């Protein structure tokens, strides 16, 4: 069985927002109990992360670190085009994931105890984000 849907995520503030509950609800709706789930974001200004849910600091410091790896005013991006803010964003997309997948077990995401699914929104003027969810299983 295959279930696929593209949802519009409401605009999120800049930063990492947990979307595990939203995804769990869609999986429940699909009625697929065992299989895999793939998530895909349709833009290069946000990424998908699976990270620690126990301490809020973890996700904050992860995205701070990643943003520093591809800084907004980097020599490389300045060489390409000073006006192209999208270059560091494209790099941040490339070093993270625009697609993630995880198992489904007993009709739920088969995540570890401390794992959560996050959308890392990087623009200061948040937009609705298209996210495609594809669930394959039985």
């Amino acid at each position, binding site marked *: 069985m295959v279930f696929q849907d593209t949802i519009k995520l409401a605009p999120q503030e800049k930063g990492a927002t947990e979307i595990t509950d939203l995804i769990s609800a869609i999986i429940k709706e699909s009625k697929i109990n065992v299989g895999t789930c793939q998530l895909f974001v349709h833009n290069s200004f946000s990424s998908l992360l*699976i990270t*620690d849910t126990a301490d809020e600091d*973890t996700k904050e*410091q992860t995205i701070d670190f990643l943003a520093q790896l591809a800084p907004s005013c980097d020599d490389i991006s300045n060489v390409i085009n000073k006006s192209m803010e999208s270059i560091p964003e494209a790099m941040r997309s490339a070093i993270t994931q625009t697609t993630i997948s995880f198992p489904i077990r007993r009709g739920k995401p088969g995540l570890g105890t401390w794992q959560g699914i996050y959308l890392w929104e990087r623009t200061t003027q948040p937009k609705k984000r298209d996210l495609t969810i594809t669930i394959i299983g039985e």
Partner: protein
Amino acid sequence: MLHQQKLRFSTTGRGTYNITKQVTEAIEKSGIKEGICHIFIQHTSASLILCENADKTVREDLNAYMARLVKDGDSLFKHKDEGADDMAAHIRTILTQSSLSIPVHKGKCDLGLWQGIFLWEHRTNSHKRNIAMTIMGD
């Protein structure tokens, strides 16, 4: 056909562990000949990679490179309840993979000759790590 199971590993500190044999054996036992094998690590401080399996210095160099890229105890980090390697381990996980999808062909992992599947432990002490495996195909 769909087969789902857990693989369990004990790690003994930071480094890469070749798990190709365990994954291949599980595929063989599943009886699925053609399809996709999805493996997902249920932790946020250990990850999965495909890497060269012939020369172990490749993985030693990967370790060294990662240690230079993400420094334990970086002054940026606030999340350090479990030690200087704690936050670095979460970031190392994000920069690599929590899941891998590998083709199954003739009942085996259809890897390249020099490819191996590795669990990358990012914590410096020993841990028990669970990998959820989903094989779909005929």
